[in-house]
């Protein structure tokens, strides 16, 4: 992502941010509500055009090669559940066709297994609990083996045990170098546990960037949560450092 900028009238939602997500890496995109996290993710997903700047996915410019670039991504977000009037298997088949996944039936069986959805295979998504729906969204997000996976608060509605299983699974795939992950979360313990690197966003700008432990040492904070609160309350102080 290079010099991404997005404004809504007078409001600057994202203010010229640049960063990259390498393969085998989980990058946490953190910040208070309204910091520009979801705007950034929407621009990477191609559903929001930046005013300036560019998004490149595996070298493909999103603006110039939209379809080919988006074939290499996928996402899961709590605010984008899959249609509730289709079953788990139907939703996965439809998105698998859109992403032109090879050996689709086999791939669907694999992700259904991975996300513990076997017994819900023929259940309509709208009849599932919010945690189960999140697992379906994650299964959809893995379907095409994306090179860049965007997860917007992926464990927000999961119970602690399910959240840990999901973190472990995503960490495992990432370590194998299958993809790079951009992960937003308000759960700082989760971020500390799973992210190799974090970006603190405030008022559309990246204020801090680096591995969680290094940032804590650098700013003399005990936990990532303390650092988050400092960024949220006094972004100017941190900007001056």
């Amino acid at each position, binding site marked *: 992502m290079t010099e991404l900028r997005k404004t809504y009238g007078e409001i600057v939602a994202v203010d010229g941010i640049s960063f990259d997500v390498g393969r085998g890496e989980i990058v946490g995109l953190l910040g208070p509500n309204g910091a520009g996290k979801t705007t950034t993710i929407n621009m990477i997903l191609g*559903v929001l055009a930046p005013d300036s700047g560019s998004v490149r996915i595996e070298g493909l410019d999103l603006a110039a090669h*939209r379809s080919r670039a988006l074939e290499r991504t996928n996402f899961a977000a709590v605010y984008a559940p899959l249609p509730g009037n289709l079953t788990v298997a139907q939703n996965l088949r439809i998105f698998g066709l859109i992403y032109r996944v090879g050996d689709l039936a086999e791939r669907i069986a694999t992700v259904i297994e991975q996300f513990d959805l076997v017994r819900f295979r023929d259940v309509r998504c709208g009849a599932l609990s919010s945690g189960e729906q999140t697992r379906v969204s994650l299964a959809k997000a893995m379907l095409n083996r994306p090179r860049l996976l965007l997860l917007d608060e992926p464990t927000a509605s999961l119970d602690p045990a399910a959240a840990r299983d999901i973190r472990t699974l995503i960490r495992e795939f990432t370590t194998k170098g299958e993809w790079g992950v951009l992960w937003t979360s308000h759960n700082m313990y989760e971020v500390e546990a799973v992210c190799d690197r974090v970006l603190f966003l405030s008022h559309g700008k990246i204020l801090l960037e680096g591995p969680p432990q290094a940032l804590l040492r650098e700013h003399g904070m005990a936990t990532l949560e303390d650092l988050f609160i400092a960024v949220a309350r006094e972004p100017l102080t941190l900007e001056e450092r």
Partner: protein
Amino acid sequence: MRWRPMAAIALRYFYLLRGSPARVVPLFAWVGIDIVLWGFISRYLNSVASAGFNFISILLGAVLLWDFLVRIMQGVTMAFFEDVWSRNFLNIFATPLTISEYLGGLVISSIATSAVGLLVMLLLASTFFGLSFLAYGVALVQFLLVLFVFGIALGVFASAAVLRLGPAAEWFIWPIPALLAPFAGVFYPLSTLPGWMRLFSNLLPPAYVFESVRRIVSGKAASAAALAWAASLAALYLVLACWFFARIHRYAVRTGLIARYSAESLS
């Protein structure tokens, strides 16, 4: 355009139809009722009018062709509304799917659903009221082609309007065929209309179809030039409707409307 992403959009609608009688029944129920109603009206008019004039061919045939156009348009908009109702835009438009593939999927859905309606109408009209489409000759193929292309254009245009104006705008869409019908001269010759209405009729491809139906029923040949002009107009409207949809989609991506569609307006 790639086949699999288009098939995905059509398959989605097939799954919804398969699991929902509330979606299946309207595919044939309203058109069936129309045929029965106009079938009896035509039969009654035949009994009181002078012998030799067949209202079945002229009225019932026109109703059948008009309902075909309406089903085609609604086939596109209904498939599109499924994404509106299930708030699925973010999931759909964040994929590699192109706009032409998306629209292609809506068209395939429409072909499948309107074929059901057409089949039911043909069956009822021919079995119970003796309507023979063979009477229209090869012109029937041209009629269906013009109405199909224009119906798709209307559906794509209506979908673009809802994408731009928000979910509540679907109520602007349903009356579109009723608004066009008086100008299209479905039930009467265009010469019946005042001059200013006829000017508008000249721009409507279905108007040429229904004039041709009346010519054939009165024993004359359909004007090949008029039908060719109607087909050209319909093709032009289809191109314009697709351009309009793509333009609205670009606007929605630029303003963030797709990501925040449920807000209806970003102002």
